[in-house]
């Protein structure tokens, strides 16, 4: 009897320490579980990234090879050249435009989805995912048919007497293609965020003299911010570095960063410059992401 009592009091006082130890142990076990992913990323991502990083400070020699001696910042300096600057700005602008359009299209849809019955939602979510079953390249070529001469779009506009809508090989075509390609990445996180919001909060807002628009602005939108941020980053980042869509739907005049970098590596054979551009691209993405999270964090 005595021992039992002592054991009890001991456990009672020892609990916090014991729990801390258990937590430490749990976190060690977690690390072990994460190991395969870490190793994979370190080997295939971090190491190759590091190589690119080294190259960005190297010099291109006369034969298109790379001299790994004589470190310099020449490649980074070239970014201020007007032609490079234009490519960079254009890419950021189109990625931004793509993100905004995706957000505007996806938001009402995600909201609509969240108001459906669970069975209906799942079916509709499958429909959102269906395009992924087809190769991305093939889908982009399909867009070429849609937008091209004698395609359904020009035929329609001509039939309506609006003249021929020649969109193929323009920036508009690129944005249309990018919006199409990345829309699901906006819909899914938005839906996940909106679905979690308690409907009664909207009712409370209406009850407290909020109009529909006010309820959206002051309740629904701020509460769906995590989804807006996640979706925007998921669309903005790949749009900024997009290669396939601009290459297939864009014209020669609308070179974007992704294509420009590929050209440096494959055509111009200027690996250091390509590497430097890749790092600038990553930097832009990183900064945008951080700013966005900060801003979102404040609203939440």
């Amino acid at each position, binding site marked *: 009897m005595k021992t039992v009592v002592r054991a009890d009091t001991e456990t009672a006082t020892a609990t916090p320490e014991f729990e801390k130890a258990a937590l430490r142990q749990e976190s060690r076990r977690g690390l072990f579980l994460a190991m395969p992913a870490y190793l994979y990323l370190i080997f295939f991502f971090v190491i190759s990234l590091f190589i690119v990083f080294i190259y960005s400070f190297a010099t291109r020699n006369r034969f298109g090879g790379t001299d790994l001696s004589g470190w310099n910042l020449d490649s980074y300096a070239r970014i201020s050249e007007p032609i490079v600057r234009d490519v960079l700005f254009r890419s950021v602008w189109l990625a931004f435009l793509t993100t905004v359009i995706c957000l505007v299209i996806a938001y009402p849809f995600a909201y609509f989805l969240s108001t459906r019955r669970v069975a209906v939602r799942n079916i509709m979510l499958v429909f959102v995912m269906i395009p992924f079953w087809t190769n991305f390249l093939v889908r982009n070529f399909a867009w070429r048919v849609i937008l091209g001469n004698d395609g359904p779009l020009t035929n329609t506009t001509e039939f309506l007497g609006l003249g021929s809508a020649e969109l193929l090989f323009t920036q508009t075509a690129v944005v249309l293609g990018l919006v199409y390609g990345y829309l699901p990445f906006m819909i899914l996180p938005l839906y996940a965020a909106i679905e979690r919001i*308690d409907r*009664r*909060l909207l*009712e*409370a*807002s*209406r*009850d*407290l*003299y*909020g*109009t529909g628009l*006010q309820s959206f602005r*002051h*309740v629904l939108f*701020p*509460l769906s911010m995590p989804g807006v941020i996640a979706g925007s980053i998921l669309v903005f980042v790949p749009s900024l570095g997009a290669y396939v869509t601009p290459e297939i739907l864009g014209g020669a005049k609308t070179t974007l960063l992704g294509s420009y970098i590929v050209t440096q590596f494959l055509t111009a054979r200027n690996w250091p410059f390509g590497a430097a551009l890749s790092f600038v691209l990553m930097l832009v993405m990183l900064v945008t992401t951080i700013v966005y999270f900060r801003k979102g964090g404040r*609203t*939440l």
Partner: protein
Amino acid sequence: MTSAVELSGITKRFGDVVAVDNVDLSIADGEFFAMLGPSGCGKTTTLRLIAGLEFPTEGSLSIFGQEVGTLTPDKRPVNTVFQNYALFPHLTVLENVGFGLKMQGIDKETTRRRSMEMIELVQLDGLAERKPSQMSGGQQQRVALARALVNQPKVLLLDEPLGALDLKLRQEMQLELKKLQRDVGISFVFVTHDQEEALTMSDRIAVMDDGKLLQVATPEEIYERPANRFVADFIGQTNLLEGTVSDSETVILENGVSVRAKNGFSAGTHVAVSLRPERAHIQSQGEFEEGWSHVNGFVETVTYLGNALIYGIKLDWMDLEVREENHPGVELYKPGAEITVSWDPDAISVVSD
């Protein structure tokens, strides 16, 4: 005088389901009004109809004489305290309370001042900058009240306002709500499934079941003169002794004994005599008060509550529950004891389906 809220012929259907069935109801200004019933009886839907969160399928609904049946919630002079409060999680207490004023376009200075006054009134001074998630259930409840009352609604609607609180806090809040209602002087319409809560707090109670309004009366009337079997059974504890009306003074019970029971039913109607446990009295077999109705039986169970004793009584044809206050010198009966249950004929009510 116009009523604060007037429902006439209100029906609400969701597809094939009739949630509210042809309800006529009039709530006076300054009244503490409870809507009581089991879950799914239509009480919450009725409240939501008044708030404008649902629209009636049929019937008309007015608030202080103004027809509001088709108006959206933001156009109605009522506010709601939601079940589980529905506080905005992304806003502070101050912002939550000021929400309604802000939406109405009232200037920042006034909004802040009135919100702070209201926060003080519900005794949350010093917590204005907190987020709802950092507060206890009782505090959240006060925020919800402040958020609604700051708008000076003409009627305050409360949907199970105390349901999420533990017993002790609930009893405290019952008194506070009552006091608050007297202070602000407007009608409070609150929905509850807790009959005790309804009896303690309300000036009048509406009992609902299956979308229908069964009785609207003061707590005393509802308890003493229930409109039908459901109300008698739902409000408080009761024994329902089945029988048939013989004349306006007499009911013949199932076992053939006729008892005195004033009623308004025609002879031959199947009724039940509602005998509250505390209105019945037990004595040794053969003993009973002069002029009281009585039946014989024996004690089956005894539950000791401290302040009272609950006897489970077995009659020939049914079981009864009798509550005896535990006065000093009260006679205690053991299980198996043969007893007579008697009651004052004026202390019962007669109900039909």
